Structures are given as structure tokens and as C-alpha cells.
């Protein structure tokens, strides 16, 4: 059982093929310090993002979100600021594999860019796989979420998942 996502839409990247490295900046990929990454997060888009975002918020993405050679620091920074997932029209497969393995909720949902506005409140129900825009009265059905992706979210990371589900006799 996965707890529903429930929060606000903190940002919308509506362009296709968005390179996730841009969230903290492509020149900052070697930075490991999470406080530095939090400071860099989204500064090229909104200098106040760090202060406005709160626990439970999500990001919306366009088609083929995560295209390119995705690295991990950007999503680490987003998670550290409280972002609980990304809902996009579609994901680039390399990005999807990498971040879903980190237990980060990634949901593909057609029509989300057109429907969403910044700071909309929403609930995503993992059982019905429906995205509910509470204030707009609009419900979008997402693509099916693979079982392994759901298990990784439940367990939080690949190591715990392997320990509990694959390596236990």
C-alpha cells in the first residue's frame, strides 16, 4: 500500500525533452553536498523556489522528460526540498529507470501539462492511478505504473527492496 501523493504543483516544465541536469545546472554535477545542491536547485528558474516549496509538492513535466545524459544531483536536491515526485506527459527511459530505482515517484499522465497550473492542489491515488486536481474538479487517468516501481516506492530504495523482496529466502 503506497500513501497517496497529496500536495501542490510547485513547477511546470512544459517543454519537451527537458534535461534534468538543468535543475541544479549542468556544471554542478560533481557536487555531493546536499546543502549546496539545495541552494542551487531551480535558481535559474525561480530564485525563491527554495522558500516557496514545501513537503509534499511535486513537479510537472512535458514529453520525454529527462532526455539526454541524466545525472542524480538534481532529483536529490528536489527531494531534499520536499518534492515528492514528478508527473510528466512521458519520461525518457534512462531517467525513469534511474530515479524510480531511487524510490522517487515518477508517473506518466497524458494531458497533465495542459491541465496543471502552478500551485494547483492535487491528490494522486496509486490504487486507481488517478490524478485529481482538487480545486478544478478534473481527474486524469495516468499510465499504468509498473509493479517494481511501486515496490521501490514502498521500500524507499533498491537495497531495501532487494533485501525484503528478492534476497529473502
Amino acid at each position, binding site marked *: 500500500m503506497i500513501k497517496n501523493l497529496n500536495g501542490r504543483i510547485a513547477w511546470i516544465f512544459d517543454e*519537451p*525533452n527537458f*534535461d534534468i*541536469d538543468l535543475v541544479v545546472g*549542468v*556544471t554542478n554535477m560533481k557536487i555531493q553536498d546536499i546543502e549546496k545542491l539545495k541552494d542551487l536547485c531551480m535558481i535559474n528558474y525561480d530564485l525563491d523556489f527554495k522558500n516557496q516549496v514545501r513537503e509534499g509538492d511535486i513537479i510537472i513535466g512535458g*514529453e*520525454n522528460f529527462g*532526455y*539526454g*545524459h541524466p545525472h*542524480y544531483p538534481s532529483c536529490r536536491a528536489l527531494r531534499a526540498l520536499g518534492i515528492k515526485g514528478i508527473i510528466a506527459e*512521458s519520461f*525518457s*527511459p*534512462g531517467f*525513469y*529507470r*534511474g530515479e524510480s*530505482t*531511487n524510490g522517487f515517484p515518477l508517473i506518466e499522465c497524458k494531458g497533465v501539462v495542459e491541465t496543471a497550473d502552478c500551485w494547483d492542489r492535487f491528490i494522486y491515488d496509486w490504487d486507481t492511478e488517478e490524478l485529481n486536481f482538487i480545486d478544478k474538479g478534473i481527474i486524469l487517468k495516468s499510465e499504468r505504473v*509498473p*509493479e*517494481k516501481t511501486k515496490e521501490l516506492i514502498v521500500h524507499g530504495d*533498491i*537495497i531495501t527492496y*532487494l*533485501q525484503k523482496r*528478492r*534476497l529473502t529466502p
Partner: protein
Amino acid sequence: MGQTIAEKIFSENYNRKVEVGEEKLFSPDIITAYDYPGYIDKYEKQMEELNIHTVKNPEKFLLFIDHFYPAGTSKEQEIHQITRRFSKKYGFKLYEGAGIGHQVISEKGYIKPGQFVVHFDGHISTIGALGAIGMGIRNSMIEAFATEQVSLVVPSTVRINLEGKLLKGVTSRDVFHSIIKQIGPSGCRSSVIEYGGPGLKSLEMDERFTLCNLAMFLGGLSAVMETDEVTHEYLKTHNVKDYVDMYPDKDAEYLHEYTIKLDEVEPVIVIPPTPANTVPISEVLGLSIDHGYIGSCASGRIKDFQQALEILEGRHVAENFRLNAVPTTTQIQLQMSELGLTQKLIKAGAMVQVSSCDFCIGQMGALSDGERSVSTGTLNVTGRMGSSKAEIYTASPYTIAATAINGKITDPRTML
């Protein structure tokens, strides 16, 4: 309903017919990786954390030291030491100094048609040229190391039919980037790209490796090609026996099908800062360039250097232009010497380097602020080859050679 090549490979791997969309555990025939901080050192720690001290089938694992090679600092040597230690502990075969693993794996005869291979790096799709599927699974590699299986949703297939023959001065590099231009960078998203058709038969194995290597930039999970006489010859030369040919059923179902007429492809350039930006070479003609690079797992094979030399031989690179020629593997480096290519490249002013991944990632031959490079490296994103204030234009070996001679972007067809 018939099956695509990918569906056949995953069905064979699972020991029963599987359908697109089914989520199953598959058993890779080969699990491979290279030395890179945050990867090999992490796997070593994760295996300890999982309390796994032996693996069931160590012969399935292959590791390569091809980054930071040769090591320039003691810290770089440390990652090599970790890779050696990790290999030794679990009994994995390790290749060091043999060149870029994505190519060495085929050269050493490990790859057979029909295999399923995983790596953390998606450029393992290179092996698709031999009718196998190589898939980059990123940080879920620990799943493969720990369980020798990976969870996967059986992917759909996008078919690309090749027709006709390439014209003079045009390469498979131009073909790949033209496909992106035609169908978009997500045109094969989350699918396996299946190349086939009469035009494929006109492409040499080196050109096929290039086409498969870059699959990720079309959104592909991997790429695979029909096998034919060219495949047979390569496999025979590399002592691979006992394999079956790979081809789709006539009634296979594809997510999309596209036809590419090779004789209509023209030289193109990918402009910074993303591999999605393909433009005809005519749009950037005359742009001054400081640096050139022919190499990488995508393009540093005999055919690439032969193409470059069709322009470079008898000429000399422009003053102040730096041209690095980096063979993909040590075996290719040897062949280049035997064929006299090394000598010709040096006479033309190129710097022929030891095989290594480092030129593609700016670890060696780096760019400084304001410089522009033309490159056969895999990627042109900001900061990939050094300074974040440098620009990378990816192109074919012909275009790089012509540009190196003139110091500005030049249509290679004017010099052939």
C-alpha cells in the same frame, strides 16, 4: 501474431513467449560495467551491505577499465584499484587497457545474436549490430549484480527500414542524426529500435555499431539489427560459433515503422547544447572551430579513420587546430598501424592517442572557455568536454576532417 527481434530475445530469455507490456524477471547473458566513481565503488559497498560475497555465475560478469585511462592522478588510480579488487573478489573477468568496453566486448567474442546484456551505461546498445540487445539499466545494476536477474517491462519495438545506399561523404553518423531530425528525439521512446531492410546490407559492421550505439538519443531502450552475411563474417573473424540468426517474423507488430532512404541523407551537424538539435551542415558552414575529435564508443573504428583520411591524406590540419584521433580499442589501434592509417593521420597533423573514454568526457584533450569543437563523441551537452563555456558540434568523421583542414565548418563533399 509474429514477434519482433526484441520479443524473440526476451521470450527466449524467459523460456516462454512474452508479450509487450508484461513485467518479468529476465536473466542477462552478460552483466557488464566499467570503472567509474559512484558506480563500481558503490556496487562494491552495496554487495557488502547485501551480505553477498560470492555470485552464482561469475563467468557472466565482465568489467572494463576504460575511463581515467591512463590514470592521470593517484585518485584516478584509486578507482582502478577498486575495480581490480571488486573483480578479484567475485571472480569477474576484467579487461584493462584493451579500449572501450562497449566495443571490446564484441571484439573478444562475447557477443552472440540473441543475447541480452545489461550495463549501467546505455551505450552498450552498440552490440545491437550483432543481433543482441544491450540495455543500460543505470543504478538498478545492483539488482543484476546481486540476483543475476533484472525486472523489466517487455518493450515495444520501433522498426526502421533502411533503403538504398549512402552517397559519397555521408556516413551512418549522418543517418542517425537525420533520423532524430525526422522523427524527433523521443521517436523511439521506451522502445527497442529494430534496424533492417535492404539498405542495412550496404552498411559495413563499423557503420552498424555507430547506428546502434546512439539509440538512447532517439529515446530507445536499445537497438538491434537483423543479422546477415556481414554479421556472419564479423562473428567468424571473432571466433563466435553456435548462434542463430535474428530477424523478425513477417507479421511482427511494431509501435511505429519508418523508412529511411540512405541515398537521400546529407551531411548534418548536431549543434549545442543537446543531441536533439540536428541541422543541415549548410546552416553552420564557415563557423570557426578550434578542436576536432574522432573517436569514442560511437565512432573511432577503422571505417571512421578511413573516411577521415579520404580528406586528410595529402593535406594538413589548419594552423592552431587540434585534432585528436582516438581509436575505440587497442585492437583497432593495432589495425590502424598495420593498415598504415596511423602514419597518414600523423602526417596530416592529427594527434593519434591511446584508446580511452577520456577524450569524450573532457578528461583528456579538454576544451577551454570560448572554444568550439567538432566531435564524433557521443554527446554535445554543455561542459561535456571541458569548459561549460565551450561549444560542441557533433558530426561525421568526413565533416570533422574537412573542418580540421579549413579551421571552419566545411561540407566534406567539397573536398572529396
